[in-house]
């Protein structure tokens, strides 16, 4: 497999890998490193890539595991990931400062979710994967994914409602 062929396979989902990594690791730099690491691992085992049924799902699982490893080592080192990248440069959002603020709220709320829920929300609502695919990636069954997703969505909605109504009701 040449570099070109490899990139051809990897390009469509490298952003998804990055975003999942960022969802779990929060810091952009950490997520970039994780993505690089995952893609390099794929490249080093490129001979085996033909055997994988779904390279994309496989990479997502790899990313998940890699990020968990990173988080574990971070915790053991007692390091906190510093981040300041809540800014989302969407023009229609910047028009409304208030709305921008509440978008940041969503980021904060998702960040506070348990890891499992974070991942499910990321894969479903942002990357728009099938429930079956998510189940495969996260090594869960279909129902468990659905339940996790439902819990995550409800939590986000509840907290958003609270912030939205804060000081009003």
């Amino acid at each position, binding site marked *: 497999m040449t570099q070109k062929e490899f990139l051809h396979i990897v390009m469509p989902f490298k952003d998804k*890998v990055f*975003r999942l990594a960022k969802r779990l690791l929060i810091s952009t730099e950490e997520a970039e490193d994780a993505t690089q690491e995952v893609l390099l691992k794929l490249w080093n085992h490129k001979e085996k890539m033909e055997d994988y049924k779904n390279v994309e799902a496989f990479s997502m699982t790899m990313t998940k595991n890699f990020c968990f490893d990173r988080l574990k080592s971070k915790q053991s080192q007692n390091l906190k990931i510093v981040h300041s990248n809540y800014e989302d440069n969407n023009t229609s959002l910047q028009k409304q400062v208030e709305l921008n603020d509440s978008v940041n*709220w969503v*980021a904060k709320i998702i960040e506070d979710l348990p890891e499992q829920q974070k991942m499910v929300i990321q894969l479903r609502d942002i990357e728009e994967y099938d429930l079956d695919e998510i189940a495969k990636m996260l090594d869960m069954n279909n129902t468990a994914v659905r339940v996790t*997703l*439902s819990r995550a969505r409800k939590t986000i909605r509840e907290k*958003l409602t609270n912030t*939205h109504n804060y000081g009003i009701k």
Partner: protein
Amino acid sequence: MVLNNIEKLLEKYENGETSLKEEQQLKNYFSQETVAPHLEMYKPMFAYFLVNQQEQFTKDIPLKTKKVFNYKWISVAAVAVIMLGVYLKSNLNNDLGTINDPEIAFNEVSKSLEMISKSFNTGTSTLQYLDEYDKGASTLGYLNEIENTTNIIFKTNQ
């Protein structure tokens, strides 16, 4: 009518039962400028999802083509070296060759035998000096005469 539909979808959404298509519908609805006031709090959520979809990985990936050293070729090289060594060695071997014609062979053999005998003779010729020694030893035979006479003397004494 539309609002009713959206509300239904939202309920399904919260139970995790919506299909991807229905979720797309929700996203489209909430990306509008105006939404129903009581659904206002959903807006930032869907906006956040849409914004996050666009985030990209920009760092480049350093793909190195790892040179895998093939140990198979070491054995090939080793065999080649051994073969070369054997070949050169057999060339260095000072081979005198063989003579096929019996007459020449006989001549050669007799010549070399003659050479051997000649040098052997020169070796033995130096040994002739040993004859002188024999001569010297033979003169000592006279001592026997003395012994004889002494014997006679001792006999008379007894």
